[in-house]
């Protein structure tokens, strides 16, 4: 199986001088195509920092990051933006739906950005809306939804374009068990059908149990990798 991404000695600092925070220290791991990885760790341990780097929305202070064998460091701002648009689906810790767009438009937006034909957009969005059980809310604005509903829309927005890499920052935090399970199945479906790789930050033991492998962060360092249940 090919390597989707590889991190070598990644370090992330925030701030300068006395205020400097070391959010990540010397992180190295790799992720295979089609692998489903959970990142665990207490609050403030650096999960979001790590996911932001993996999802190309932040850059490490030190270390190398290879995505599909390409050194990310060498990509221009525009190339990274293109990469995010085409190949990466990002589920944000705080859903980050676009407030002036309806549920339908929020989910359709990534397809629109990738210049998918309107008819196909309509088909795919309608189908996915049914799968997440929000087809009756398609014309509502995010502010009219509950926290869990927003989270589901955020998940749908990340998955709609079938990216090769999905980064999910606590995707089930505001979901009840049933919806957490349904969302996980949706991710698994994409994972199995398309070989998409997943990195999930989660506290949820149920979610972690369904991952192939998990890594533990503690104060920004890796606390020994353990094998999940799925692989081998």
């Amino acid at each position: 199986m090919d390597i989707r991404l590889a991190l070598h000695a990644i370090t992330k600092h925030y701030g300068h001088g006395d205020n400097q925070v070391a959010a990540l220290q010397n992180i190295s791991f790799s992720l295979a195509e089609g692998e489903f990885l959970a990142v665990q760790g207490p609050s403030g341990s650096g999960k979001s920092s790590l996911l932001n780097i993996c999802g190309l929305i932040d850059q490490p202070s030190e270390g190398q990051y290879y995505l599909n064998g390409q050194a990310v460091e060498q990509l221009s701002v525009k190339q990274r933006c293109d990469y995010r648009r085409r190949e990466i689906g990002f589920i944000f810790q705080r859903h980050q739906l676009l407030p002036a767009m309806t549920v339908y438009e929020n989910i359709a937006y990534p397809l629109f950005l990738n210049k998918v034909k309107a008819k196909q957009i309509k088909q795919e969005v309608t189908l996915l809306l049914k799968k997440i059980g929000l087809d009756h809310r398609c014309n509502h604005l995010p502010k009219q939804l509950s926290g869990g509903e927003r989270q589901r829309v955020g998940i749908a927005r990340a998955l709609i374009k079938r990216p090769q890499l999905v980064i999910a920052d606590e995707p089930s935090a505001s979901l009840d068990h049933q919806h957490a399970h349904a969302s996980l199945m949706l991710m698994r479906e994409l994972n199995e059908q398309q070989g998409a790789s997943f990195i999930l930050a989660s506290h949820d033991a149920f979610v972690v149990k369904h991952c192939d492998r998990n890594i533990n962060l503690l104060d920004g360092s890796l606390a020994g990798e353990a094998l999940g249940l799925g692989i081998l």
Partner: protein
Amino acid sequence: MSFFLIAVRNILRNRTRAISTILIIAVGLAALLIGSGFMLSTYDSLQEIAKRVEGHVIVLKDESVPAQGGVDQQLTLPNWQAIQDELWDDDRVLRILPRARFEGLIRHGHNSAAFFGTGVDPKEEFRVYGPFLKTTAVLDPWLSDQDMPDVVLGTQLAETLSATAGDELTLHTLRSDGQSTEVMVRLAGLFHTGTPELDDHTLMVNLSTVSRLLGSEKISQLSIYLEHYEDAAAIKQLLQAKLEGVLVQTWDQRAELYDKVKAQYDRIFGVMGIIILVVVFLAISNTIALAMYQRRDEIATLGALGTPSTRVYANFILEACLIGVVATSLGMLIAYATANAINLASLMMPAPPGRSEGYPIYIYISWPHYLVTSVVLIAIVAFASFIATYNNAKVNIAKALS
């Protein structure tokens, strides 16, 4: 997916701010349109005065030929009947008015005053002034040269002389040979121009009264009135080619008041226009910059989803332009309503320098003018929003989302 609708929703998310920006731009535009509408109507009426008072084409004696002084300085144009004959057959010409200027002393009983007089063609002269010269207390036949010639006086001059219609007055003047001459005249009426210097000192008599009094067939100028004033340049060219020793001018070359007022108004309204454009520029820059600051995490989300920065710019510029379109439409309506109200109320402007009375404020309403001004304003809005967007669109995605 309608980005138009999304932009509208975004504007409505902060409607207080949008409304205040819209009002600033709308009121600014309305002020600009009303101000320039007033300016344009003033220009027009000043041009109208110049055309009506001086004529569309004016024939004078060429000034490079030295005059002898005295009466000869004023009655300089000989053979004017020949020019008149020349032009009679031209369809473009409506009237040809000879004017002979002379000066002297006018006496009524114990009162006397210096005057500037004009000998005119009584049948045609008073048809050209329109609202710019009002005649009152007119006796018939108008400005006759029979027995005792008629005179019409400026209202103020008549007051100075305590003369009323029907009174007999004496005109004293000097002939070209230096001999003093005088003639008894009958006050046939008054005229009123609204310019004190004129109403104070001027009078008009029949042209033949002047010829007889001064013993000269020459006049001062020939004022030619055309069917369409646009033909003035062509007629001027025609006359200049045919006539020798004369100076031919078009109305705009003698529109001194128009030139002066225009220079002044252009400055005033130019400065006002620039101020309003700057205000609009700042209002929009400010609105967009504020909106982008408040919506950093939205911009970051767009970026995280891989939205090209040009698309992010476009979203905000679209919002600014929508605000601009709504604001300019509102501004045009405000200007239209206000201009109509002012025109209907026939408000008076205070008398400008050099005039004894105010004039009704009239404000032009011209849709092409409105549209062009609005388009300029929207272009400024687009430009301001582009600059504001460009300066604010670079957000650190991870930081904005954390």
